[in-house]
């Protein structure tokens, strides 16, 4: 189930994107907290609690009273597109390259001419991607920690409150990478795999929004894996954070793992087309 050569090659393949996202997530918390601190808290609370219609809280997922705190404002970074989209790009990019990317480029042909099991190729790549996701989340948390500890809000926020939120990001990355790898395992064109995953992601966003905004259609939200991505809730209520995280991780990590297992089975049994 493991292959050292494939492990090393996968790290080489993902190194560029890993370094880029690592640099982005190192810089982003600093920039975000500095920019946020330019708006004084009373002004922010004024806008949030008085100027914006309270109905809009449905979109937020957490009460505006939680958002209008220093911890709540930092937690907004975890739902900022820089974090969410970067996590999504990572998951879809790495997952789609697992099989369909290599089949489309033709490099899978030479690899599978060697005495290596298909499941070993797939699982080793999955492990490398998952470990790299953990590294990126570690970078994100350290950046948040140091930005809080040395930034304008030092002493006003406990950095440890963001551990569950960071782990939630890891769950999202693993879930999307797993689903992407599963689709990739059945596909022969990376562009099509990415397209399917983009469609899935858009559907997930819309389902989550519909579930939040409509009482009669609230069940639609459960069709979205993004319903288990709620870093603001994990930050807003420290007492409930870990039980909530367990539930969210069960969905995200469970879905990711199930997708990886399904993908491994599909890949081990399918016919592989010859390179064009």
């Amino acid at each position, binding site marked *: 189930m493991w*292959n*050292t*050569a*494939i492990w*090393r*090659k996968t790290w*080489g*393949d993902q190194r560029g994107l890993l370094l880029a996202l690592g640099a982005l997530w190192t810089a982003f918390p600093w920039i975000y907290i500095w920019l946020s601190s330019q708006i004084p808290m009373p002004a922010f609370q004024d806008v949030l609690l008085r100027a914006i219609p309270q109905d809009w809280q449905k979109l937020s997922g957490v009460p505006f009273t939680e958002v209008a705190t220093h911890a709540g404002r930092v937690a907004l970074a975890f739902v900022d597109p820089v974090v969410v989209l970067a996590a999504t790009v990572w998951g879809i990019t790495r997952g789609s390259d697992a099989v369909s990317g290599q089949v489309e*480029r*033709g*490099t899978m*042909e*030479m*690899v*599978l*001419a*060697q*005495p*290596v*099991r298909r499941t070993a190729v797939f699982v080793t790549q999955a492990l490398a991607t998952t470990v790299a996701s953990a590294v990126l989340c570690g970078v994100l948390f350290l950046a948040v920690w140091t930005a809080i500890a040395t930034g304008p809000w030092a002493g006003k926020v406990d950095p440890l409150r963001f551990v569950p939120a960071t782990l939630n990001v890891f769950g999202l990355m693993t879930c999307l990478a797993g689903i992407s790898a599963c689709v990739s395992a059945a596909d022969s064109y990376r562009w099509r795999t990415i397209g399917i995953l983009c469609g899935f992601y858009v559907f997930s966003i819309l389902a989550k929004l519909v579930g939040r905004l409509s009482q009669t259609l609230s069940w639609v939200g459960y069709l979205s894996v993004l319903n288990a991505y709620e870093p603001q809730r994990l930050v807003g209520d420290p007492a409930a954070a870990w039980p909530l995280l367990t539930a969210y991780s069960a969905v995200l990590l469970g879905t990711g793992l199930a997708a990886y297992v399904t993908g491994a089975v599909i890949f081990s049994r399918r*016919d*592989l087309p*010859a*390179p*064009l």
Partner: protein
Amino acid sequence: MLVHTEHLSKRYGTFTALDGCSLQVRAGEIFGLLGPNGAGKTTLLRLLLGYIRPSSGSARVAGFDCVRQSLEVRGRTAYLPGEARLFRRMNGHMVLDFFSRLRPECRRDRAAGVARRLDLDCGRQVARMSTGMRQKLALAVVLATESPLVILDEPTANLDPTARAEVLDLVREARAAGRTVIFSSHVLSEVEETCDRVAIVRAGRLVHEQSLDHLRRRHRITARLTGPIGAVPAALAHQVTVGGETDGRIALEASDSLAPLLGWLATLPLDEVRIEPVGLSAVYDAFHRDRGADGRTA
């Protein structure tokens, strides 16, 4: 037998890529696979390597089933695909390192030696290599192993004449070392000068197997008739076939040693006599000219 297939077939919906292929490849021989584009040669090879599953029939390599024991098959086989694609971000050294780690018995120094013989600069990145250079690198990967079976699909494609000659030498050295080679090519001259036996595939069917040793003993004699010729002597009847007369010219085909024939030929009323080996092209053309797409006579 090192390779044994029995009624091996592969169908994609209504399209039959390989139809009931039964062949055997002996250990220690160079076995050629000939056929036009789309004949099913690559399908056959990919079935052996486990890239695709057969619709029916079976295939075994060194006694291992190609479907259920694919790992064992690939552990005993070195395969060069028809379109060998390598990792663009790696250079030649990194590619050789990677594949030598994937295959325990692959010797890195041997791979480097093959690369040198093929005059390949391994310091260059694959993305910056020409098509021929990538082919040489793939050959270095494949020929560095000491597996009992080597399968080469179009190994000399995109190679310059010097490299082509080196590759054929390497194939012959593999046989001399006791290895078995399956050699798929469109270049009849290469198959003819290298292989011991050849199979001709057309429209998914194995239509003919030919021993090159027997082929080399076959000759075609053409001449201008200056008078009527009689019946072939009984002693030579088993090895001589007389063709029809066309525009005053006649063709005879001899399937065995020429020496017994020469005395009889000298008695015939012939002029402008030409004697030439039949050649693989004549055999190939017999199965590919004037035939329909299904391989049957038109």
